[in-house]
Structure formats: structure tokens, C-alpha cells
């Protein structure tokens, strides 16, 4: 236990050139396992659609104020497929002490087309949340209604790198911190992208940071093979937007399907 804590908090032992630290990931896995098995009781399906080797992009819906969904999707992939994922993370996170370093050591990189493309070209499994900050910051009343997927930059990057896209639907993440309102003035003052007000935060102080124990489902869909289009297709706006919309609709449909399968949100 002490050794594990030392690995988590101490200086990195053997990071790769991206700053990913496998020992750090292994050492923090028991905490993620606890959240996965006991707290959120995650059911993962469709993991056979994840490629056993080679580049691929997992595109998932994003929710929950605090992006625990990234850690849970990564855990599901590691459990059922054995591979490590590299997540594209909101840039703001890297300005934070500790959190920024921990995210990097866990495989997160600042979300940019350059980073995504390079990771794919190195045959990594890249996790993206095309909704970005809009996804995690939406109010509870709009839960499970996917935000727009921007300009489809993730599709263009996948086309350029010749990587298949695995759509992924996550259910349960919306209930962990139900956002009732925002405090934009305070957020601006603290330099944060937004400051949520939930039933437990800021009312219960630091306790409000504990996520609610909702029940989760994660479904991976069959990969979308983009190789027939070729890398030049990345500059075809119409095609990129069409593919983006199709992927968004597929994830939305799978989210609804899993909501029905889940039955109770908490029990």
C-alpha cells in the first residue's frame, strides 16, 4: 500500500516520450477498479469490437461535470481488451497542479489534432470526447441529449491517420454530479471553464466532490472503417460532417438503448 502510494505520488519511474507512466497506471488501477466494480457497477458490452492491435479512435459521449467517464472507458478497455488508451483531454486541465501531471502520467494529452494524429500514427488506441467541454458542462435537465460534435475534427484526424472509429455509448456518467446551475462570475474569477452547482456542491464543501453512485453501462459499437475514403477525404467538409453526424446519431441511439437496459439509475 505504502509502495503503491509512493508510486502514485512520487516522481515518475519510467515514462514514455508522451509522459505516459505505465507503473503509475498500474498503481492507481485498484482505485479505478473499486469505482468500476463497487461504486458504479459498470456493465461493459461490445468489447470484441475493439481492435486487438493497431491504431483506432474511440469516440464517446461526454458527461458528468468531472470527467470520470474517461477513466471508466479506459478501465473497460483494459479489462476486456488488455490495451492502454490515450485520452485527448481539455487543455485547461494541464494548467492545474497535480491533476495535470496525473492526467499526463495516466495517458492523457492536450486535445489537439497534432497530438491525436501522432498518437494514431504510433498505433495507439485514442479516446476522444467530441462534445468536449460542452458535454461535461450541460445541465442535468439535458442529460443524455448529446451536444453537437463541433466541426468533426476527430473524423478528419481519423481519416488522415487511416484509423477506424469505434463509437462508444456511456450511460451513468450524467448522474454522478447532477448540475443544477452554474456560477459563471466565480468561475471567471478562478479562471475555470465553468463552475457547477450540484445538490452536493458547494453545499457539502469538499464532500461535494464525491461522485454519486449511479449505475453505469458502456457499449462499444462495431468499428467504422474509413480506409476506403483515403487521407485526402479529410479536407472534404461535406463527407466529414456527414460521417460526424452519423457517428453522433449512432452514439445517441445506443445511449437511449442502454438507458432502457439499465432500468434503475442508482439501484
Amino acid at each position: 500500500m505504502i509502495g503503491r502510494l509512493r508510486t502514485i505520488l512520487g516522481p515518475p519511474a519510467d515514462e514514455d516520450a508522451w509522459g505516459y507512466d505505465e507503473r503509475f497506471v498500474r498503481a492507481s488501477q485498484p482505485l479505478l477498479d473499486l469505482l468500476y466494480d463497487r461504486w458504479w457497477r459498470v456493465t461493459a458490452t461490445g468489447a470484441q469490437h475493439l481492435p486487438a492491435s493497431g491504431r483506432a479512435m474511440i469516440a464517446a459521449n461526454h458527461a458528468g461535470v468531472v470527467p470520470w467517464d474517461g477513466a471508466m472507458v479506459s478501465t473497460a478497455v483494459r479489462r476486456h481488451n488488455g490495451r492502454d488508451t490515450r485520452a485527448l483531454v481539455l487543455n485547461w486541465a494541464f494548467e492545474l497542479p497535480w491533476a495535470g501531471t496525473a492526467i499526463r502520467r495516466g495517458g492523457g494529452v492536450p486535445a489537439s489534432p497534432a497530438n491525436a494524429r501522432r498518437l494514431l500514427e504510433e498505433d495507439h488506441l485514442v479516446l476522444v470526447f467530441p462534445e468536449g467541454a460542452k458535454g461535461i458542462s450541460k445541465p442535468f435537465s439535458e442529460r443524455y441529449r448529446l451536444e453537437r460534435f463541433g466541426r468533426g475534427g476527430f473524423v478528419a484526424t481519423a481519416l488522415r491517420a487511416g484509423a477506424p472509429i469505434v463509437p462508444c455509448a456511456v450511460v451513468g456518467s450524467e448522474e454522478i454530479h447532477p448540475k443544477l446551475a452554474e456560477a459563471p462570475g466565480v468561475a471567471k474569477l478562478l479562471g475555470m471553464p465553468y463552475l457547477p452547482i450540484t445538490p452536493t456542491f458547494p453545499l457539502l464543501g469538499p464532500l461535494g466532490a464525491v461522485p454519486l453512485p449511479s449505475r453505469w453501462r458502456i457499449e462499444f459499437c462495431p468499428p467504422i472503417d474509413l480506409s476506403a475514403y483515403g487521407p485526402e477525404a479529410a479536407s472534404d467538409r461535406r463527407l466529414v460532417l456527414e460521417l460526424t453526424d452519423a457517428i453522433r446519431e449512432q452514439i445517441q441511439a445506443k445511449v437511449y438503448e442502454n438507458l432502457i437496459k439499465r432500468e434503475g439509475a442508482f439501484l
Partner: protein
Amino acid sequence: MPARRILITGVANFWGTGLARALLADPDVEQVVGIDTREPPSDVASAIRLIDADLRTPELRTLIRAAAVDAIVHADVPQFPEPGRAARQLHDLTVMGTLQLLAAAGDLPTLRTLVVRGSASIYGSEPAAPAFFSEEMALRPGATRFQRDLQEIETLVGGLARRRADVTCTMLRLQPVIGVQLDTPITRLLRAPVVPVMLGFDPRVQVLHEDDSVAVLRQAVHHPVAGAVNVAGPGTISLNAAIRRMGRPAVPVPHPFFGPVAGVARRIGLPPMSDDTIRYLRYGRGVALERMTNELGFTPSYDTRGAIDAVAADLRKAAAA
């Protein structure tokens, strides 16, 4: 290949002297001309033609034309701003000197090769930066004065490249160079009795060994490529791991207090730090090395970790002696 005549600016600094020595040993080099206001070591001073001049002197054009060289290596661009020097003075040294030099170079009919020892500091250090900057990513407006100075220098070099299609202009962007012979803000920091770091931050850094920093200049003289080329030891290492390998104690300071603490540290004899250095200590920087490997055809003898370990071993040897 005809006998080559090569001019080196900043010939008395580490890079100028090292390159002059390397070129003097090359059989196809006929003459090395050096420009500096300081005296290079005697072995170099006796073997080269030394022009004792500041790059900003108006006579520079006449002097350079008379030298009739086919290659110019501009090794007088600072790698990091020297803290304690006024920003304007620094600007004057880096940009105005280069401006004069390139104006003179543009008039030189014999010139075929220009190599500039620039700095990867041009990319700055940002939280949202790409993990590996590639050469075309330096266009964004620089966050610091020094970054903007470097951008201005590169614009000047780009201007010469356009005007003179017969001159191959190689802009080398070196990641911080480390070594026991060097005295730069980064080497001073790594040699300090305690190294201040930012609490909760552990940036990825990438360095170049001093031997490789000279070797790459020589490589560019013999095999110039047009445009910018990043230069660093492959791989990256986190700052705390690097400091640990150097055997130094790191002192974490909360980032809002880092500036003031650095100021106090300076008064008690620790090395002073510029904004660029402070940002670097918070966010680090990595660069893509495909152009260096594939186009310049240069492979450093030390990767980043190897360079750190080599310098650590040299420092221990020096301490024991």
C-alpha cells in the same frame, strides 16, 4: 567539392569554438573566418582568421565581402534570454546583429550556405502545446519578448532565403543544450545546490548534449537543408526524474509564489531566471525530430536520458576531482 571557406559568428562562444575546431579538422575546409568581440581559445585564434567586430558595426558588410566565404554559420543567437539584461538590450543583440549579418550575407555573391543556430524556445512553453512541436508550428504569436525576438530572426532568415534562391538557409532550433562546459540558465539551474521546481508540476523536457550541439552545426554546414529543423536528443524525461538523475535535491514551490521565490533565491546566490525559464519549468516542451533524422541526416550520440546521465556522471567526476 571545392575547398570551402566558412565564416562563424560568435566564434569565441562554446558553439563557435567547437565548430571551428571541428571544421579545421575537415580536409575540404580551406579557411575558417571568425567574428567575435572576445578572444577565442589560442588554438582556435591561431588557426582562423579572426575579425574583431560586433555584428552591429557598419563596417561588417565590407569585412564580410572581403572574406568571400561560401558558408556562414550564425552561432551568436542566444539559446535563452540572459536574465539581468534589459529586454531592449537583448533585442538589440539578437535581432539587430542578425539583421546586419543577413544584410551583409545577401550581398555576398560567393555564399551558398547559411546555418543559424536558433532555439526551440521559439515554440514557448504552454499547457495546451502539442506534445511534439513540428517545424511549421512556430507561427503563432510568441508569449514572451524572447520568443518574439526569435520569430523576428527567423523571419529575417526566411527573407534571405527568398531573395537568394542560390543560398540554402538552415534554421536549427535547438532544445536546451546541457553539458559541463556550458554556462546557460538551464545548466546553471541543474548545477545549483538546490533546484526550485513548481509544486504539482512535472513537465516533460527534452535536451541536447553539448557535443551533439556542435556536431549538428557541422552536419548542417556539410549537408544543409532549406528551412527550420528541430534538434534534440530523442525521447523526453520529466523534470523531476531528470533532477533526480542529476543527484540534485528539488525544492517544490507553489506556482503562484514561484516568481517572488526565484527573486529571493537570486539574492542568496542561486541562478536568476527569466520568464521563459519559469514557463519552461511549469510546462516543458517536446519537439518532433523527423526532419532532423530524415532530411538533415543527423542522429545525436545521446538521447535525452543519455545526455542527462552523461552530464550527471561528468559533474560527479568534477566534484570528486
